[in-house]
């Protein structure tokens, strides 16, 4: 708790929280939204393709989106860390936060599995997709839906600071 307090009271965290500038907390929050919109959104679109929607779209080229996905994850993680540090004592004491982190971890692991098991196959567009690919697509969507919901619920459940 002591460590968390020190984190929360650090110069950076204080600036994020109380800086008063739109480039602090509000902008970091926006980066988090943009990151998650890109990450969950593009991952979600790839999932929809794997599930068979838009069948004329070749799967192999979708692999090019992975750098974008990892980039979006970096932005979301960095902004998330800044947001966490600004409110460490409250958030790390909130069960919903851990629920969200679990779902995010699951979604990312799922994405990596998609990369190796589905997009790792060089004959991807020449064969039928294995059933496991479709299962991974479904779980990916469900994990992102759960992570988004848990993220929103953080403002309402458990210990809540003034920061929303």
């Amino acid at each position, binding site marked *: 708790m002591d460590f968390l307090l020190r984190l929360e009271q650090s110069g950076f965290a204080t600036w994020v929280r109380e800086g008063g500038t*739109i480039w602090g*907390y*509000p902008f970091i*929050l*926006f980066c988090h*939204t*943009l990151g*998650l*919109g*890109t*990450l*969950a*959104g*593009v*991952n*979600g*679109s790839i999932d*929809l*393709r794997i599930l068979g*929607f*838009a*069948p*004329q*779209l*070749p799967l*192999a*080229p*979708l692999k*090019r*989106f992975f750098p*974008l996905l990892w980039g979006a994850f970096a932005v979301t993680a960095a902004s998330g860390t800044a947001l966490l540090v600004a409110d460490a004592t409250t958030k790390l004491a909130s069960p919903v936060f851990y629920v969200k982190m679990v779902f995010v971890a699951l979604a990312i692991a799922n994405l990596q599995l998609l990369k190796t098991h589905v997009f790792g196959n060089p004959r991807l567009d020449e064969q039928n997709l294995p059933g496991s690919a479709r299962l991974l697509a479904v779980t990916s969507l469900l994990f*992102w*839906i759960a992570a*988004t*919901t848990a*993220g*929103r*619920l953080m*403002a*309402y459940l458990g210990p809540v600071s003034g920061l*929303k």
Partner: protein
Amino acid sequence: MNTPHVHLLLNHVPTVGTIIAVALLILSFIRKNDGLRRVSLELFCVIALVTLPAYLSGLGTALQFEQRPDVVKAIMDRHHDAAVFGSIFMVLTGGAAWLCLWQQRRLGRSKAGMIGTVLVLSVVTVAAMARTANLGGEIRHPEILLDPDAAAAATAEVAPSFLSAAAIAKFVTGHTWVWPTMEAVHFIGLWLLFGVVVLVNLRMLGMMKSASFAAVHRLLPWAVLGLGVNLTTGMMFVLGAPGQYLENIAFFWKMGLLLLAGLDVLYLTVFDAPWAVGAGDEAPPLEKAMAASALVMWVGVMYFGRMLPFIGNAF
């Protein structure tokens, strides 16, 4: 130009506009003219988009007029309830029309069932909007009232009571679970919409060139579903706490950008130039410029949405 003025200007669109669009649709059946049919469907889409600021400017006006002694609130409320009902059907008509256009682009012709749906929805919309317009007229034009006292005292419902503005507001604010749920749904709708938008526009900008534009065009309905979900939850937010949005400059920017971005989705759905970008093709410079601006606009919508609690307070 103030809010009431904007409303008086824009309210012609869902009223007169829909009558013209329905007339064109019916004419297209009589003349068996595909071009006319396409125009009427595209018109429904554009009108549905413009209905958003038309409605919002009305709500803004209502907030400003609430305390005025020369306006009868009961008459305003009836107009509002009719407007909510009419707007819902307008957006449904626009959505169905968009679907027809999407099918037509992909299959060469639209499906009879879908066209029929548009016809039915649009006729209901015209009737609902006509009623809305008449009730609106009663607010500031006592000269049209045959019986002014009866108008002020009228209690008969103009629309199903559960869809009245007050009922929706009560639902949203009366249960603690509604707002958080709507927020979660709004965020999911956001990434569903944005994901497809990114894929489609990045293809135009040169990523995944081995895919034809037609291949990613197939994903557009998912973006429109995300948009539909967000319009619904968005309306519930606005009805639940109108002052929070209508007195907020960030909301004005968000809606403006949303309108333009929505027009871009329509453009991508129906125009020949995007559709002509085939597998392996580089998109022409104009299409690339539009794709880049579309991405900026959608990011802008997210930006101003996220900034609502912050920019609003600053003013």
